[in-house]
């Protein structure tokens, strides 16, 4: 345990540089490829290097101790550690410098693992040359570094949570119960998200809505939570601790404060349109409540379908109908943000061979959930769409849109489909023991707590047939039945079945508007190849993004089931409250500064800044940069025609020596161009 000492500032940035170079073996990662003692000998020959040491693991307490002792002994006033990527250990070594009494920004890390020995491991002379280049460049830069001071900003004790599914609800309740103000925003008129659609949950066979609805009403009752349903975040400004958020509240066309939710209007509305809550399997009126337990329980008019006949206006006992309702804009300031925007089910029409949308009795699994649900379109009595017959045989087709490498679907496993198909089949079989249920799968993935037991029990005791083989195609037979063709890979023979209905176990996809979400919240850099948002570190920072103060939870980062989603939501709430309870946050001072005597006032940097950090001083006629808003991207520095902007830690006088030393000197005489 090291005791925290305040920055002693013993070393002045103007002292002549005395550089210490520390080369790490990283076990055999580096030491197994290049000769580390020889690299030390090389480092000692470089200008201003006063000492060079090596150690098996520089990141260990002993390794850090070496640096601290040398600083304390006054031997060195700048540090180069030649080891792994700075993304791994920059903070570790900076802290060691600080403990030793050196400004932590007088440190530079040369990455000779990821950038050298890992990629050049079979070429020892080549790797040695590259390692020398990296060390030489780091030494060149560290000599020109300047001491910087960390800035701290206040953190507002409030959180914006985007998405009010089970992730958003849980995070909101945790934060609200710890005393923070929470703004819970959702695009749809009700909270609950996808979990409200589901019939039961695996492996406990709990009724999904029975465990969701109490949480939903708790959210509505909690005084610390401001519920903003039917709303959308349209812009975000500011920085960690002080995010300025603009929210558009869509017009409900019904005064939400007066509506009592009596439902007279719905009974009398003459317009019927598709019900998105039941995935189009049941009509709803143009004036509607998403589902009986919806929170909040006030009605909404769907103006895309409303014909403005005026009947609801005449009928409404509290005169709450407002045809001239307008969108409302709300500006709030929050300290932290949690993105819990969830997923979209895979659109199975893209897999032409399964005929979804073409063959009537091929439905997707979310539709099956609604059919099984007691408040679904058929009140829990499963009926097939073509003739409302109760199906006597059902096939579940697994991996629709998942584990798909042809470009029509997603490459990843969606993690929930094996279990929900097993659950749906079991649920159906419980009510209809004389029916036939088949599940066609590639691999059955039952990895969670109690999942394997659930699958085993279902297969053994419920007579559900699991057939190993991906379904090739589905065809429509004359009587509305569906012909399923597949290969049974266990028996190694093709199978053809004619069944009453087919359920496609569709995978989970990033939301169709994920790019807008990423853009608005400035997390565009944090997207993985699969289209989901990227966590700051897949293992150690699973709910952080690379933008400070913005956290993620649930399916917005990748497919996961309810327990994992809730765990992430609670983790995100805890991470957000850590920031808020401390009350202030440190910001790395990589911001840029305008040299006002050089600035010509051309304003070209202002339009380029992606963070709106630059303003124009009308009195002095020069640009000014807000050092907290500035993220240090360097765009303005590169653009400035008068070279009037300098960026901390990445100044020309720091970068150019690196380039100069990286390029071999003494070019051949004939290669020198004479101007």
């Amino acid at each position: 345990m090291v005791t925290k000492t305040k920055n002693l500032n013993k070393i002045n940035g103007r002292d002549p540089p005395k550089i210490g170079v520390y080369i790490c073996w990283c076990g055999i990662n580096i030491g197994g490829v290049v000769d580390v003692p020889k690299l030390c000998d090389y480092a000692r020959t470089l200008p201003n290097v006063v000492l060079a040491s090596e150690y098996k693991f520089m990141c260990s307490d002993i390794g850090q101790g070496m640096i601290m002792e040398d600083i304390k002994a006054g031997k060195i006033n700048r540090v180069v550690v030649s080891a792994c990527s700075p993304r791994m250990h920059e903070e570790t070594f900076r802290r060691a410098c600080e403990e030793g009494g050196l400004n932590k920004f007088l440190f530079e890390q040369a990455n000779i693992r990821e950038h050298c020995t890992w990629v050049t491991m079979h070429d020892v002379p080549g790797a040695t040359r590259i390692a020398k280049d990296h060390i030489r460049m780091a030494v060149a830069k560290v000599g020109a570094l300047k001491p910087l001071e960390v800035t701290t900003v206040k953190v507002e004790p409030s959180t914006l949570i985007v998405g009010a599914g089970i992730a958003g609800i849980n995070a909101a309740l945790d934060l609200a119960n710890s005393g923070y103000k929470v703004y819970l925003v959702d695009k749809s008129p009700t909270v609950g998200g996808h979990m409200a659609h589901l019939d039961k949950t695996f492996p406990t066979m709990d009724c999904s809505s029975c465990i969701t609805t109490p949480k939903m009403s708790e959210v509505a009752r909690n005084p610390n939570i401001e519920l903003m349903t039917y709303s959308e975040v349209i812009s975000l400004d500011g920085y960690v601790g002080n995010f300025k958020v603009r929210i558009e509240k869509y017009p409900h066309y019904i005064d939400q404060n007066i509506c009592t939710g009596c439902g007279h209007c719905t009974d009398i509305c003459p317009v019927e349109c598709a019900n998105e809550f039941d995935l189009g399997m049941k009509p709803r009126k143009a004036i509607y409540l998403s589902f009986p337990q919806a929170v909040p329980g006030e009605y909404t008019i769907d103006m895309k379908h409303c014909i403005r006949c005026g009947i609801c206006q005449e009928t409404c006992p509290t005169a709450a109908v407002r045809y001239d309702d307008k969108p409302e804009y709300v500006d709030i300031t929050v300290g932290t943000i949690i993105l819990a925007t969830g997923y979209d089910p895979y659109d199975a029409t893209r897999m032409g061979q399964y005929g979804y949308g073409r063959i009537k009795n091929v439905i997707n699994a979310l539709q099956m959930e609604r059919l099984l649900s007691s408040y679904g379109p058929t009140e829990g009595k499963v009926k097939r769409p073509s003739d409302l017959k109760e199906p006597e045989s059902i096939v579940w087709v697994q991996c629709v849109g998942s584990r798909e490498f042809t470009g029509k679907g997603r490459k990843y496993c969606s993690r929930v489909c094996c279990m929900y198909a097993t659950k749906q089949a079991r649920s159906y079989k419980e009510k209809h023991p004389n029916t036939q249920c088949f599940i066609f799968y590639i691999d059955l993935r039952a990895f969670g707590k109690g999942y394997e037991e659930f699958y085993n029990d279902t297969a053994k005791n419920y007579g559900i047939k699991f057939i190993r083989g991906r379904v090739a195609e589905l065809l429509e037979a004359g009587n509305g039945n569906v012909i399923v063709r597949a290969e049974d890979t266990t028996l190694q023979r093709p199978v053809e079945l004619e069944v009453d209905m087919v359920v496609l176990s569709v995978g989970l996809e990033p939301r169709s508007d994920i790019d807008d979400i990423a853009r608005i919240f400035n997390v565009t850099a944090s997207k993985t190849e699969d289209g989901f948002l990227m966590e700051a570190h897949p293992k150690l920072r699973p709910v952080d993004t690379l933008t400070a103060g913005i956290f993620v939870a649930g399916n917005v980062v990748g497919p996961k089931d309810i327990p994992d989603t809730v765990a992430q939501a609670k983790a995100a709430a805890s991470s957000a409250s850590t920031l808020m309870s401390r009350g202030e946050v440190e910001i790395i001072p990589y911001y840029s500064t305008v040299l006002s005597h050089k600035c010509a006032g051309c304003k070209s940097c202002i339009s380029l800044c992606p963070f709106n950090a630059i303003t124009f001083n009308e009195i002095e006629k020069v640009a000014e940069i807000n050092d907290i808003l500035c993220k240090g991207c360097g765009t303005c520095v590169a653009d400035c025609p008068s070279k009037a902007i300098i960026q901390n830690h990445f100044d020309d006088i720091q970068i150019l020596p690196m380039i100069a030393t990286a390029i071999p000197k003494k070019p051949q005489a004939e290669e020198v161009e004479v101007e």
Partner: protein
Amino acid sequence: MSNDDLKFALFLGCVIPNRYPYIERATRAVFDKFKIQLVDMKGASCCPAPGVFRGFDIDTWLVIGARNITIAEELGLDIALMCNGCYGSLLEVNHTLKYDKEKRRMVNEHLAKIGREYKGTVEIRHVVDIMYNDIGPEKIRNKTKYGRKKPLNLKLAIHYGCHLTKPSEIRPWAKESENPTFFDELMEISGCKSLNYKDKFMCCGAGGGVRGAFKEISLDYTREKLENISTANADAIITSCPFCHLQFDLGQVEVNNIFKDKISAPFNIPVLYFTQLIGLAMGMTPEELGLIRSPDLKGVPPFTPVKPIITKIGETA
């Protein structure tokens, strides 16, 4: 674009000149009506067949295919062809050579020996593609409107054939290979109805060298297709490929013999190449379209009699 500008190099392939010259005759007659010029390709050889040649040696397949394409390049015309096999071969040879520099270098090394060079300047077009995308359903509808007193009223079993739609990435059907409708749309202009029969997109059985190597297996496929087609009660089978055409036409006679015990009744479903049907819809005579052999001309009539069709449209005409 006016159709007057349309001019193509006509690639015949092997099956049409040797087995079904009437497919060429019908196509030329119909294209004439739309004022589309078809120029002969002197010295054109076998495409070569995708199943047989590509299956054994890809480089040979590429070189022979490229040689055929260079003939059209000399003419400065895109290739029009009437066979799915030729379409598959030449389209894929052309695509490979346009994007694979290594293969292109290899092919040109070989072609240099006979003084030729593949340049990649022409496109490969199936006549279905030309009719659907260049001429367009609207123009064909106008031509058929006044061609006959009454529209044709047949129930058609349309057979797309494998190479027409797959692989879909490089074909002009908006990446639709699972449930395409363009051929049905084109045929229904005639007033006929395209039937939805079981396994409509199944192979005819002939392709991939299967007919050459395992005739009985290939005909077993054909039997299954024919059974599905007769269950749907089709008046005629429509093809876009002479090899599929052969497999349904001559194949019916063969199936009736080989699978005598397996089938309930001998098949007798007339098989038409699609330009013949369009020709009929435009009011051309069966003789002009090669459906009936005119006494003064050489050539082979269909193996499966088309008389039922001619009588039927005779009644409705």
